[in-house]
């Protein structure tokens, strides 16, 4: 049962990621990425990362992708993508495909040779993650707040209408 669900959702993640790369309309690519995010969240739950899976769904599907959708809709007719044949010549397309297939097969060759020991397993509950976060990782946690603050400043400074 668990194995079937794993194959279904990892296949769904890979197919929808291919959709992100190959679909020609930006809105469809974005909706395909939302499917990838949900499948990845389910894989995180299989791995016992419950808190991170929930945060992943809230932050990505809830905030980041809606922001993307907003910008793509805001662009309207300008948000288009050239068809694949106009982006590259045939020669470079074949070369790119060959490079991709060789990269992927090398990666799979290395990963399938490597046998991992049975997983120790972990239950990443809110309590455990919170305790570790606020005891061992307190300084990085505080530094992320500065990064988020700088992100807000940068976005406001860049998107201001009369920025000269």
């Amino acid at each position: 049962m668990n194995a079937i669900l794993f194959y279904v959702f990892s296949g769904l993640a890979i197919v929808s990621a291919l959709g992100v790369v190959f679909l020609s309309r930006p809105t469809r690519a974005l909706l395909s990425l939302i499917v990838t995010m949900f499948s990845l969240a389910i894989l995180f739950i299989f791995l016992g990362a419950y808190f991170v899976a929930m945060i992943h769904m809230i932050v990505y599907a809830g905030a980041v992708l809606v922001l993307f959708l907003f910008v793509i809709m805001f662009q309207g007719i300008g948000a288009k993508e050239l068809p694949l044949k106009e982006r590259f010549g045939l020669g470079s397309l074949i070369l790119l495909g060959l490079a991709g297939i060789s990269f992927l097969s090398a990666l799979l060759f290395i990963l399938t040779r490597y046998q991992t020991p049975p997983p120790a397993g972990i239950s990443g509950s809110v309590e455990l993650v919170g305790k570790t976060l606020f005891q061992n990782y307190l300084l990085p946690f505080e530094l992320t707040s500065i990064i988020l603050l700088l992100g807000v400043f940068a976005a406001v400074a860049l998107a201001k209408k009369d920025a000269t």
Partner: protein
Amino acid sequence: MSIPISAYLIVSGILFAIGLFGLLMRRNVLLILLSIEIMLNAANLNLIAGSALHGQVDGQITAFFVMVIAAAEVTIGLAIAVLLFRKSNDVDSNDIRWLSG
């Protein structure tokens, strides 16, 4: 039966490769950002698989930090894309030659 962790690593590697090719193939700046998101999430899957393999929660915390950084990066990237769109009505990465110099 439980899934071996290497299966998760293979899925993560395939997703990373797909994201890398999207990054190289796309011309629209917004879709390049979407491909970067796929790559970041493949790395997150790798980190969480390592966390489950060793029974330590540190990998999940690192994935959490990656998410925070990704959110900040997306904010700035989208602000830049909006600026580009306002300037030239287009976000084709080959047309942004006037940035040089």
